[in-house]
């Protein structure tokens, strides 16, 4: 199969899955037993707000049901839901008082940014340690690394994040190991939020950073976008470098917390994969040729050992997006995870549907990219 055929085939296969996810999110949202019409009006449901043409009273509750389209059949509701999805009208969030699409649009880049940097930390660490571990197979270092590989996977992300906050974000007075250099709370790294509160200002109950004209990726925006409203921030703070550094530092702890389990599993996979490759004939040949051991391992073995590692990337991305739910809750990032938690605890089901849909599309697309990359690196994959 040619590469372009493979790509088109994978894209085609994606369609039924996305349709399935849409049906799935819709049905889950409709399985949720709470009555959103009743939730919206609370204790004012009985109040008569209008009369029909026949003079029948309409209560607030009935009006809500009408507005939310709950009086129609499920199939009609589903059809409406799908057409609206395509029109870009994903409904109105009750908790955020904003269109769902806007909420998701603001939240998604934060999660993506965090997941990206988490994997940027996890991959080099995991792969390097995996290589070292495989090279020193059955030595003390290897045993220690194997232990850490499993231990990293076993850490509860939320607990590890809090431990990081405790030890790297506080000074010695509070039990941490950091002396106050920068950041707040006297620690090395900021504990909380996407930005220092000095740089943010709330709007409509949602903490905003760059309300207009940004890409949504805060790290990018902090450097490139200048907004009129930012001039409200005191001058001595309003330099790009300070803003950028602040944005970057706030990412440090969440990314470590999120990346550690990926690093652990990568370590183990890389070790196994490299050990397998090291027993191959071509590695023996390379050694027999008299190549330096470092060259044998780095050039001949690692290159091939890394190929299957690409597939792990898909799992890592899923793990990172799922784990974001926890880290975002702890570090108060307004990303997808936090939006998901908020919407589910307050049963805001337009947002639940939107968030589930968007996370799964992000996940599917990143997996698609991983698959295509794999097919480019290893043409055998295309044959299946």
């Amino acid at each position: 199969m040619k590469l372009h055929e493979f790509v088109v085939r994978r894209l085609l296969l994606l369609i039924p899955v996305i349709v399935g996810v849409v049906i799935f999110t819709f049905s889950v949202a409709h399985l949720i037993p709470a009555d959103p019409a009743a939730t919206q009006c609370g204790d004012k449901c009985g109040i008569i707000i209008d009369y029909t043409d026949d003079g029948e009273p309409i209560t607030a509750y009935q009006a809500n049901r009408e507005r939310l389209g709950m009086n129609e059949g499920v199939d009609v509701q589903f059809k409406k839901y799908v057409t609206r999805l395509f029109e870009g009208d994903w409904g109105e969030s009750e908790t955020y008082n904003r269109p769902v699409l806007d909420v998701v649009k603001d939240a998604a880049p934060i999660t993506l940014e965090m997941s990206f940097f988490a994997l940027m930390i996890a991959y080099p660490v995991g792969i390097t340690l995996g290589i070292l571990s495989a090279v020193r197979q059955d030595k003390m270092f290897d045993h220690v690394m194997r232990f850490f590989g499993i231990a990293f996977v076993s850490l509860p992300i939320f607990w590890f994040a809090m431990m990081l906050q405790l030890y790297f974000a506080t000074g010695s007075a509070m039990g941490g190991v950091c002396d106050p250099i920068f950041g707040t709370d006297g620690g090395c790294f900021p504990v909380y939020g996407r930005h220092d509160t000095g740089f943010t200002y709330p709007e409509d109950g949602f903490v905003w950073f760059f309300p207009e004209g940004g890409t949504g990726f805060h790290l990018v925006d902090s450097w490139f976008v200048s907004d009129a409203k930012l001039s409200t921030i005191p001058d001595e703070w309003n330099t790009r470098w300070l803003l950028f550094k602040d944005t970057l530092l706030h990412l440090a702890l969440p990314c470590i917390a999120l990346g550690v389990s990926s690093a652990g599993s990568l370590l183990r996979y890389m070790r196994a994969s490299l050990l397998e490759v090291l027993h191959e004939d071509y590695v023996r040949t390379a050694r027999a040729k008299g190549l330096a051991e470092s060259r044998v391992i780095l050039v001949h073995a690692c290159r091939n050992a890394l190929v299957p590692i690409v597939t792990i990337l898909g799992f890592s991305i899923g793990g990172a997006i799922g784990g974001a739910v926890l880290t975002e809750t702890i570090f108060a990032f307004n990303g997808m995870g936090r939006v998901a938690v908020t919407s589910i605890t307050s049963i805001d089901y337009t947002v639940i549907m939107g968030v589930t849909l968007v996370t799964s599309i992000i996940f599917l697309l990143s997996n698609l990219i991983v698959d295509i990359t794999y097919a480019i690196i290893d043409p055998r994959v295309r044959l299946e």
Partner: protein
Amino acid sequence: MSDELLLEITNLKKWFPIKEGLLSQTRRYVRAVDGVSLNVTRGETLGIVGESGCGKTTLGRVLMGLIPITSGSVRYSGEDIRKIPNKEIRRKMQIVFQDPGGSMNPRMSVRSIVGEPLLVNGISDGVDLTHKVEELLDSVGLKREHMTRFPHEFSGGQKQRIALARALSLNPEFILLDEPTSALDVSVQAQVLNLLQSIQRSMNLTFVFISHDLAVVRHISDRVAVMYLGKIVELADADEIYRNPRHAYTKVLISAIPKPDPSAKRDSILVEGDVPSPIDPPPGCAFGHRLQHPEWEKSVDMDLSLREVSPGHWVQPCPCCTKDLSDQVIEELDPIQSKGSSETPE
């Protein structure tokens, strides 16, 4: 040996579809078995030889009814095997696989392996089964104590004996031996072959013996069929085919048999090129195509079905591989065309 026909294979074809393209449509086929006609008489041993990938194993599977037939027919004592109840086929036809280790469930004891056919066909169980298995183990030259052991505790030759015992358990009339000795040492091969022959004699069995080893086939077979790329190119008595091979491919194969005398002159014929893929095989004579024979094109439009050249000796006529024969055929068929083609200057 009687003259009763046990198996009649007529124009048997087995094509495997290849799924490809965006929507997994079937555009091409692997023609593993592509028009084979054969007869097997009761009590004989028919050897099928050919290089790997020529479709001999598939042929065996198809005539056992293990995989469905694409077209053509297989008749077992005059009855189409697709119409015979599965249970009866299984009782009459058995198979011994190439890889004795792989054909046994590593988690089952020898008693369960050998007794499984009896158990699943409801013939015996319990203590009766144990006795029957003991007898079967005796008949293939294994000890009764081996019954409680597991396959991995046996050597290759012993495993093949177990496989044979399993095949014999239902008292079949016919056994397909799919390269039963190729995974064994030469010394063990001989033992197994002798065992096969003695069992065949004592139980009046019919064998189809598939192998790529011509020496082994010659030792055991009454008749030999040579297969190339899903087709039979030559079929004759074992001695006849080794003494007087007519098809070029058969000649090549026979010349490749190692001679026991190291001082003998090596006269093996070397063939250039690779075995063509059974996916979209070349039209006409496949071996001629491989040899890039100048007269290959003539074979494209020819009827390549087997011809009897001498009693019991059937050969595929073709201008490149069996020159003398094919000329005769062409003349018989259409003298004008043959004249025309031979006179046309290039």
